[in-house]
């Protein structure tokens, strides 16, 4: 294991490590465009040049392997000069698009220029003209003039999505990135090229002109699109609510997790956030005279516990059925088991939609199960068959059916729902199930609460609240706490964290940043 010195600091690394990776271990960031840890090494931007003792020429850090005793300098005047020179070369033909470019504020040309540039341009020629602002796929726009030919996007399509849509054509400074004519960048990972493009050459249609990035805030979360649980950042704007028609969630970005999704996310997950902004259940509703009437929390927080209490008293726990959801967090599910299962003694608690057909799955990230917490629900043990519960409710044995978050839209399901007299629906979005309920409780989405999901492998991953619950919706945790309080159950949970601690025996802070595999003891304890 060689020891190398970078800027006076020593570090021991594996033999196959490159200088740029070794520097990162020391917290030293070497500027780069073409290098990306998830792609092959191109070594073409030349920005990462560093000084290495005993080597007369500057060497690119991304390609140079460490040797024992190597002495590297990353910020001498010579290095800074070279970096500035490469930056100048790239900027000579780069269009002055900053005022209209989405990348502004997160652009590596801007960033490095502010860091090591700050020179006056001495370019007097006409800039090279290429195609600007045209669509290359359902989600991606290409501006060839802004492109610095780092080849990251081409390598991504060759190596990661393995769909080979993009190429670099022609030669010299006439080179350009493009699709083959008539083709489209339509693979299910197309959005990732936007992340890796260091400049505004590849930009997102959905985000185009929506919001300046300096108005965005970021929160770490977990994608709820399937059972993979790709790590994400939710980028939201609450500071300037007049922008982008008041949409709070502007985009999702993948977050690096070496075990789950590495640097990537599929387009389904990346663009699956509109439900947070649109078609939400924003207020509580109560069915009166055959239709759902807008009401308030005070009313429903009386009504729901009353209905549950009555059912319990007259019919016992068999009179209540609960259909939880694999969209809910571990903490929500744990609380449901506690409140309904333990404290009320209900045994009919299920979670799986029997009519939900498995979706598309590939051998990379996308899972057929489009729910983020199926495994969590299994581990927590909410395993009663849902069809049975619905049938028991339809035949009248179950008097009060509490449904969380589901969208039962199969005709068979709807038929059953139509014949159930007492449905309490707690969910975030309007759908055919919510419309058939007698009480509708507006719940928060995953972006509006704290909690954790357990992915298909059994990895528990934490997610954090990005924005407050919309309008009058409340988190499932809050709603259940209010119901439990009204039922005079002794609960001492102030926050989902408390539930997690009880369930896992540790706090979020003690968890591995990349998630943790569900423990054996817990599995046994849950039976």
């Amino acid at each position: 294991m060689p020891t190398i010195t970078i800027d006076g600091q020593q570090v021991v690394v594996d033999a196959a490590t490159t200088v740029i990776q070794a520097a990162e271990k020391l917290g030293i960031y070497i500027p780069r465009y073409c290098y990306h840890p998830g792609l092959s090494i191109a070594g073409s931007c030349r920005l990462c040049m560093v000084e290495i003792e005993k080597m007369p020429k500057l060497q690119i850090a991304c390609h140079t392997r460490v040797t024992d005793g190597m002495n590297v300098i990353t910020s001498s005047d010579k290095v800074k000069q070279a970096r500035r020179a490469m930056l100048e070369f790239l900027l000579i033909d780069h269009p002055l698009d900053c005022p209209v470019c989405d990348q502004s504020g997160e652009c590596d040309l801007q960033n490095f220029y502010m860091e090591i540039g700050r020179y006056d341009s001495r370019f007097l020629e006409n800039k090279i003209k290429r195609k600007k602002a045209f669509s290359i796929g359902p989600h991606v726009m290409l501006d060839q003039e802004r492109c610095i030919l780092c080849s990251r996007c081409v390598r991504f399509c060759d190596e990661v999505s393995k769909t080979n849509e993009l190429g670099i054509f022609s030669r010299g400074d006439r080179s350009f990135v493009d699709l083959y004519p008539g083709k489209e960048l339509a693979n299910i990972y197309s959005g990732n090229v936007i992340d890796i493009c260091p400049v505004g050459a590849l930009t997102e249609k959905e985000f185009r002109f929506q919001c300046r990035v300096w108005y965005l805030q970021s929160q770490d979360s977990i994608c709820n699109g399937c059972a993979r649980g790709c790590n994400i950042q939710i980028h939201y704007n609450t500071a300037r609510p007049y922008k982008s028609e008041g949409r709070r969630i502007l985009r999702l970005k993948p977050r690096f997790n070496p075990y789950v999704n590495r640097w990537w996310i599929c387009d389904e997950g990346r663009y699956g956030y509109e439900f947070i902004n649109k078609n939400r259940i924003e207020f509580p509703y109560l069915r009166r005279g055959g239709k759902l009437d807008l009401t308030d929390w005070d009313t429903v927080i009386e009504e729901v516990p009353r209905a549950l209490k009555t059912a319990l008293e007259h019919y016992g726990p068999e009179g209540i059925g609960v259909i939880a959801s694999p969209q809910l967090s571990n903490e929500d599910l744990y609380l449901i088991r506690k409140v309904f299962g333990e404290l009320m003694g209900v045994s009919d608690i299920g979670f799986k939609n029997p009519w939900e057909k498995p979706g598309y799955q590939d051998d990379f990230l996308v899972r057929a199960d489009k729910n983020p917490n199926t495994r969590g629900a299994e581990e927590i043990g909410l395993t009663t068959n849902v069809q049975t519960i619905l049938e028991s409710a339809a035949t009248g044995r179950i008097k009060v059916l509490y449904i969380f978050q589901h969208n039962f839209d199969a005709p068979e399901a709807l038929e059953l729902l139509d014949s159930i007299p007492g449905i309490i629906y707690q969910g975030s979005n309007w759908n055919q199930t919510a419309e058939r309920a007698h009480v509708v409780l507006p719940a928060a989405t995953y972006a509006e609460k704290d909690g954790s999901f357990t992915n298909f492998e059994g990895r528990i991953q934490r997610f954090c609240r990005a924005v407050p619950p919309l309008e009058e919706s409340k988190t499932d945790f809050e709603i259940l706490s209010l119901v439990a309080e009204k039922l005079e159950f002794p609960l001492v949970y102030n926050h989902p964290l408390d539930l997690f601690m009880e369930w896992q025996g540790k706090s979020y802070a003690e968890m591995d940043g990349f998630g943790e595999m569900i423990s054996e003891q817990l599995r046994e304890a849950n039976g």
Partner: protein
Amino acid sequence: MPIVKLVSEYFGNEQAKSLDWYRQNGGYEAARRAIFEMAPKQVTDEVIKSNLRGLGGAGFPTGKKWSFVPADDSKPKYLTVNADEAEPGTFKDRYILEWDPHRLIEGIIICSWAVGIHKAYIYVRGEYVRPYRILKAAVEEAYKEGILGEHVLGADFKLDVHIHRGAGAYICGEETGLLESLEGKKGWPRLKPPFPAIIGLFNCPTVINNVETLSHLRNIILKGGEWFADIGVDRNGGTRLFALSGRVKRPGVYELPMGTPMRELIYEHGDGIAGDRQLKAIIPGGASAPVLTADQVDIPMTFDDLAKVGSMLGSAGIVVMDESVCMVKAMHTIADFFAHESCGQCTPCRQGTGWVYRIVSRILDGHGSVDDMKTLESAKKNMSGTSICALSDGAAMAYGGFLSKFPEEFEYHIKHKKCDLQEKRMAVA
């Protein structure tokens, strides 16, 4: 020094490309001797002794290059013959291909025997159509007569030779650009290390040698490495082909011992400047070689002597310019070439060659700016030592030659918005 006809012995002889004639005149005797009487290492040692250096441009000692190939047999080894002659001012390899293809094939056999190679590809530039046809006929003849194939010259030594046509890209003359092109891709040079001797063609150890370099092997094996070395000077062995062109009365290919003064080549063999004008400048070794001024014409033509004065012998494409040649126009022509041929892979070369060309065009057009000289100097400096391959360095050196030797011409163009030389139209004799 008189012209020595070793590798150019058969230039002008229509019969030499026939296998029968070649054999009747000592052809393939050296190959036979190497295979049947010498161990592979002996052959390499002979070549090292000869001080033969790469004659495509880099001037790397040939024997030493062969010795970098690892001895183990785990992967097949390849020879790629660099017949992608595209360096401006260079046309000598074309002569070998057109007049003496069997000498090249014999050299290929000798090299392959020495290094343990059983498959060789001759990468011929796409524009060389006639040379390609002649070479192809020679290779086919060689196969028919058992010179190539399963049993080279009847020995237990297999060697296949294939011709691979290029498609018009100067960068495919760069070693790893050539390999990429041979593998069916764009000619984008590779990051080094690893070097081709270890990881080359199809990931296997590969030797890349120029046409002329290999063509000298016949004589080296027949007459000995020491003999070859003695013809030349210290560390620059033997003779080489010099391609003389530009404003001389007798442009052409001249074979001379290494160390011959440039004056002799230009005034004796080239018969002096056309129109008996004054010599002004000489490009001594292809487009990347910094231009020399007339007072440097006595320089001995070796790799080392030219390197000492900050230039290079390179491909020995010697381009002569007289007093009526505008150096701004000359640089413009060279800059056009580099901008056109940059593969575009890396920042300094792609952007630098394009930028320099645009600035010099503007100066030539009479729209130069007072800052241009500084900008050119800076762009050139930033193109040196920062790129993936030597094209950028070569271009920077070429620009530097013009800018440092003839700054007053650029300054005149910038200040007065025109050329100070009367470019007379010359009827070339």
